[in-house]
């Protein structure tokens, strides 16, 4: 094992750094080590892809059904606002 190898992140360390990586909050040398790790580690590439997939899925959350009484109440409020504003 060379000195350079020792400085590399393990996979277990890398999974804790994914958000720092995606948020671009890593020191440049750590970011290089992260990228370096990805070069030889397909499972971590997949892990990173899954974390990206997860945040994209969150961005697609379908609207929650609004309880019918709440909806009626809000429409009532809207009509009231409309009358007073127009």
């Amino acid at each position, binding site marked *: 094992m060379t000195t350079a190898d020792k400085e590399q992140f*393990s*996979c*277990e*360390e890398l*999974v*804790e750094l*994914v*958000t*720092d990586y*995606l*948020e*671009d*909050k890593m020191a440049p040398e750590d970011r290089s080590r992260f990228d370096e790790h990805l070069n030889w*580690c*397909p*499972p*971590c590439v*997949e*892990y990173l*892809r*899954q*974390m*990206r*997939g*997860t*945040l*994209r*899925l*969150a*961005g*697609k*959350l*379908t*609207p*929650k059904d*609004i*309880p019918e009484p*709440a*909806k009626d*109440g*809000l*429409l009532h*409020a*809207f*009509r009231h*606002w*409309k009358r007073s*504003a*127009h």
Partner: protein
Amino acid sequence: MTSVEQAPASERSVGDDVLPRLLAGDEAAFLALVERYHGSMVRVARGFVASEAVAEEVAQEAWVGVLSGLATFEGRSSLKSWIFRIVTNCAKTRGQRERRSVPISALAQEETSGGPSVEPERFFDSSHPRWAGNWSVPPERWAEERLVSIETIEVVSRAIDELPPVQKQVISLRDVEGLTAEEACELLGISEANQRVLLHRARSRVRSAVEQYMKAGNLS
């Protein structure tokens, strides 16, 4: 500099014309806006108040606040961040009135500590001569077509609902609604570093839920 990654805004915007339509009294535009944001508003409110029912009330109260402020909304921030400012303000006021004992900052602190993002059993332990800390049970590739399915989105939705309150707030504001880290920190009154740790924990848990779902599906 790479930019911070988030879902494309087009997937969640309600359309640029929504404001003039609202001001013109368009009910359909109002209902579309409510349906678009109400779920996240309840999730965010929930962290400040004692129950789901109160969070629902707070979100409704916030909509009334949105309507009464609409005529004077100057568009200095996006409509979305303005709406989330209103709901967090309503929720904080309500939380204070109820004298909720644990403030968000303390909850946030508590939620930043906790277990690893991935179970330690999935890595070779430190005794391994060559692969210590590397995957022993690596993640399996997710099928692209299942990533876009309604069922998978439902799994994500349920996983988010089960998160601890502040993690739920952070992931709702950041990943569901696409607000910036700065906006999320300001709304919740937490530090940037805490926000990032909470976002990481939340995303890791949700990823894990999707992974379990994918695995179960692959077996059948």
